[in-house]
């Protein structure tokens, strides 16, 4: 038995998912919906039925989104650019994280007295681990485990609020942090290597860097295919 607030919440997320309504638009529509429900309930309609009638009268989400998109055209494109920038930053962040992890592993190996050869394998392992972690996180976000987070993000980013744009700072800062970390660990591990080993280590890193360039797009393609088969859980019941 879903309570009224839950249903209204899900209705609101379905509208927000269209991407063309700002937070204020949604507030206005929700206020209208609640007032309509209130009036209908006064005429002795059950809450459930009142919700259905009010929702029907308000209009189907698809046409509403279309109409709002026409009025909020600028905001819709800003939202798209935001998501594209976010995607780019996310990938760069994962790459930097993988690079950092691999160098930390190499450094750990060298520090522990392992041969440069083994440390090379260690660093490759670090990179694979980072990729697996990123893949798992993407899976969790997109398969509905973090529904509340997605709803919040959807609403935040479909508005023109500065708050939404500031979220982009998070991956940007992390990229700088990871990049700096990578440089430091690279410098540290180079000190532990004899000059003649350097070539070997860099060769190994080059191999795995190219493997990474193949693995990353492959991983994304797999993610897309798998996600297109399952339905991404949306908010509408």
């Amino acid at each position: 038995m879903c309570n009224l607030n839950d249903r209204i919440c899900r209705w609101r997320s379905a509208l927000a998912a269209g991407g063309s309504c700002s937070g204020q638009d949604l507030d206005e529509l929700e206020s209208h919906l609640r007032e309509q429900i209130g009036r209908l309930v006064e005429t002795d309609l059950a809450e459930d039925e009142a919700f259905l009638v009010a929702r029907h009268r308000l209009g189907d989400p698809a046409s509403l989104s279309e109409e709002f998109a026409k009025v909020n055209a600028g905001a819709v494109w800003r939202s798209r650019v935001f998501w594209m920038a976010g995607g780019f930053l996310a990938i760069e962040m994962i790459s930097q994280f993988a690079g950092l992890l691999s160098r930390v592993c190499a450094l750990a190996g060298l520090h522990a007295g392992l041969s440069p050869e083994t440390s090379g394998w260690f660093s490759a392992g670090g990179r694979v681990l980072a990729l697996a972690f990123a893949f798992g996180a993407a899976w969790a976000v997109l398969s509905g485990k973090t529904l509340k987070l997605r709803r919040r993000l959807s609403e935040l980013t479909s508005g023109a609020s500065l708050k939404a744009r500031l979220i982009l700072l998070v991956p940007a800062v992390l990229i700088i942090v990871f990049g700096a970390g990578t440089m430091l660990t690279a410098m540290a591990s180079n000190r532990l290597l004899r000059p003649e080993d350097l070539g070997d280590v860099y060769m190994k890193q080059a191999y795995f860097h190219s493997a990474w360039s193949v693995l990353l797009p492959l991983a994304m393609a797999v993610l897309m295919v798998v996600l297109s088969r399952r339905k991404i859980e949306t908010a509408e019941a």
Partner: protein
Amino acid sequence: MVSKELVAASGAPLILSILSRGESYGYAIIQEVRGLSGGRMQWTDGMLYPVLHRLEEQGLIRSRWGISETGRKRRYYRLRSEGGRALKDMMNQWQVVFSTLMKASEGEPCAT
């Protein structure tokens, strides 16, 4: 039942007319339209709001956020002077259309 195209075309002048009587908000405007047309003009409630936003963008109306009797946030709209002028202009246009239609259907010879 009035056709969708006519409902869409008359949306702006209707809203401006209703607002010319005083400040109002979305739900009340819809109720007013339903009442005025005797239910023969069916509006999809949600479609009112993009029209209101467009009118605001055009500088014909102004909005403010207030609190309803039930304590909920509510957005109120009121007519601006440009809106009043635009409304007069729209009403004139509708008057021209209406009288032309009437003359055409009555078969009166057209006066040049």
